[in-house]
């Protein structure tokens, strides 16, 4: 079966088993290894990408279901020398990163969340992170950085990352 979709803004097609998980296409065929395959069961969130602007775990997304969709990976969120997404900039500034493997998925999940929830409270941010596990950091710095990011956007009268997604 042939599946055509947009990948980081470019047309892309796949020929093969439509049940192939999207994460495997991204990593093994397109070498977009920023999307991490960690649990492959939808619990850890490290493989989160945007499909038509919604954050989804790419391990649970059969490629056949992205026919005609626009897929954005971490590489497409701020590509080349583009400025970091405000969430990425806040994570960097807060020294939130440790081993770093959960962060691409964390950024993809939370970038959709902050776009849609500009007034989210700290408990709401934590609730939104239920599908993103981090084994290193103990989470609090990530939550703080998301809250700071929303604060900054509110003060500037903008939505977070609106220009990117």
């Amino acid at each position, binding site marked *: 079966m042939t599946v055509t979709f947009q990948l980081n803004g470019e047309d892309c097609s796949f020929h093969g088993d439509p049940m192939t998980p999207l994460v495997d296409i991204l*990593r*093994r065929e397109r070498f*977009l*290894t*920023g*999307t*991490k395959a*960690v*649990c*492959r*069961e939808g*619990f*850890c969130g*490290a493989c989160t990408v945007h499909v038509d602007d919604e954050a989804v775990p790419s391990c649970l997304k059969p490629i056949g279901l992205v026919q005609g969709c626009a897929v954005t*990976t*971490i*590489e497409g*969120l*701020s590509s080349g020398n583009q400025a*970091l997404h405000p969430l*990425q900039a806040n*994570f*960097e*500034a807060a*020294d*939130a*990163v*440790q*081993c*770093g*493997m*959960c*962060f*691409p998925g964390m*950024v993809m999940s939370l970038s959709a969340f902050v776009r849609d929830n500009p007034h989210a409270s700290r408990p709401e*941010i*934590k*609730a939104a*992170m*239920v599908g*993103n*596990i981090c*084994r*290193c*950091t*103990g*989470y*609090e*710095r*990530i*939550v703080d950085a998301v809250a700071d990011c929303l604060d900054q956007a509110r003060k500037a009268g903008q939505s977070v990352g609106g220009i990117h997604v």
Partner: protein
Amino acid sequence: MSELSATVMNLPRRDAQDKLRGRTKYTNDRVRPDMLHAVLLRSPVPAGHIRKLDVSAALRCPGVRAVATGADAPGLYGIGIADHPLLAIDTIRYHGEPIAVVAAETEKQARAALAVIVLEVEPLAPVSTMAEALQPAARLVHEGWRGYEVITEGGARAGNIAWEAKSSRGDVDAAFARPDIRIVESSFTVGRQSHVPFEPRVAIGSWEDGRAHIQTSTQVPWTVRNVTGRVMQLAPGRVRVTVPPVGGGFGLKFDASIEPITALLARMTGRTVVLENTRQEEMATCLCRENAEIRIRSAVTAEGYIAGREAVVLMDCGAYGGEQVFLTTMTAHTLAGNYRVGATRLVSRAVYTNTPPNGAFRACNGVYNTFALERHTDEICDALGLDPMEFRKKNVLGDGDLGATGQVFEADVLVPMLDRMEALRASTGTSEAKADGRLYGIATTVGTWFVFVGPSTATVNLNADGSATLVTSGVEIGSGTMVQSLPQIVAGQLGLAPDQVIVREADTDAAGLDVGVGGGRTTVSIGAASLAACAEVREKLLRTAGEMLQTRPEDLVLRDGRVEITGRPGSGMSIPAVVAHAQATTGPITGSGAFTARNTPAMSGCAMGHFIDALDIPVFVVHEAEVAVDPDTGHVEVLAYRVVQDVGRALNPRAILGQIQGGVVQGLGYALHEEVTLTADGRIAQDDFETYRLPLAQDVIPVAADLYEGAPSMGPLGTKGAGEVPILAVGAAIGCAVARAIGKPVRQLPLTPPRVLRLLHEREPPPEFPHIAPGWASNTLG
């Protein structure tokens, strides 16, 4: 010290941007289409004899380039004792043990070939528990244990006891016979903890110019090099190990495991081979923090003086000795490095079972021994009617006190740290109001850990652009040492900015021997070696500049990228000018440094079978937890958590606070819900993210932490390791706080809601160890 002000800073991580953009290439991101894929045939039974292993059909499968079995790599490896084959040879000792490996053009082809390997196993009744293993008539997990090569002498061994370490100081029998003491005895049991690094164990092997090259996700490149040499019966110098950024380690990657298999297959095929554990394999064969059983007895006077103490600690090493052989050493320090005790004797045994082998996990044996000791301390206080905080202040080790092996501890550290905890609590307030009708408990606990010093090397090359290149075998596992503390140390010594220090990633062909990244040792040991390398660089730099400036070298300082005359900012010349002159006259400026343990003495005859008789750098913590227990569900909510941590000197306080938050949360998982159980057929039951309950954002709270500086340390600039120890006393603090909340003794972790409910309703049977004899000496090999 002038370089100190140039060294201490909250330097951000240079690797953060790439990690956040998904550009960092971890080992498992480096798979290329031209690589062969290896998959393992693993044992379907926990114990047995291999009667037939025929791989001929697999070799004929499409795409298959090689199949290897134990016969292809007959050497044995281990820590202390060489008992571990790379692939099972004749005997199967655990469910999931690798037996054969197929390398094929695709993973699918390799798996298809696995399915046609003929394996016939005569199953044996597994030795599933330490209780079974210690029965007098127990089947031996290693029938040939006597014949194994002993790599480190000194431990007692017999049958299913892989290793025994003992410490004994003073007359314990006399202490227990005193008329003025009460005897308090407690028993504890803890399960395993799975590390769950996001990057599983993975390696990419190639065969280049007659040598193996392994790229791998490891904390110990030199161990992988040496083990690969052993199992392949090659000189270790014919193995090169390089290490890309590591996606989490936590101790799991402090030993070799699957890496040598890729070198073996690369030699057989001439191709580059990748082997990566699936998540199921990773968790089913995780070298977990071991399950353990602990019995402690203390003889205490009415005033609260601990006249005598004895303990038996059984550590399940699983099918092979591994790290547990070494870790038996730690009982002497974790059970007797906290409190002043008159006479003490401790025995710690690593016991073979037919279960997946265990390994090292952040603060290893210390986490459960600290839980056991702190709960035991509270039971002493309950029995004697003493206030637990007063008891601790009165009895914690201070300047001149003796540890279990007769080590003399320096300086009063724990008492002032307890005072600091009270000050921290006064500043944060307590959270009892948040209990909101649930059962409330608060507990303050202490813990002692150490820095695993050992050998490290460093080379510093000073470049003509004024930058410096630091070459070590250090690995960035996420803790930040390679991107924060080490460049800070080198920059501070050479008057550079940290971003002028280039840090080479580990390559055993480029840097000298290193014990590895773990045990809180990187900043201390590689830092000390780097400091020594910088001293040589400074000496050469100042000598050259002295000639150029016609000034004595001792009148020169390095500051802001310049060599200046002391007290005259802006004088002298730039470092690049001096380097250029040296390159043209005496040669490029380079320095090398080395470091190892000081080997602090123990008292003669006190330590038997120990890899470390005394702690070169003890590290102390004080942890305090407040909990609310729901009496209807048994759910424990952590309301507040406070830490005072002995850091020696904080080079990057913000990074240390990040380690404390992360380490405490791993400890909360261990204390409350990370549970590993073994099935009747010896499998780890929790082999995915659905069954193993990791901490989530909603489970955690911000940890309030105070960094205690100034305790003595042989570390560079007075540092101690800060990343390992934050997990040490979490099980202790939570266990003690829950026990106080529910008014029942807590003797087992994790405190899952069902277990807490059973405790509340007195339906949780206390641990009983019929396999631990009543007399201490009967639990030793004599």
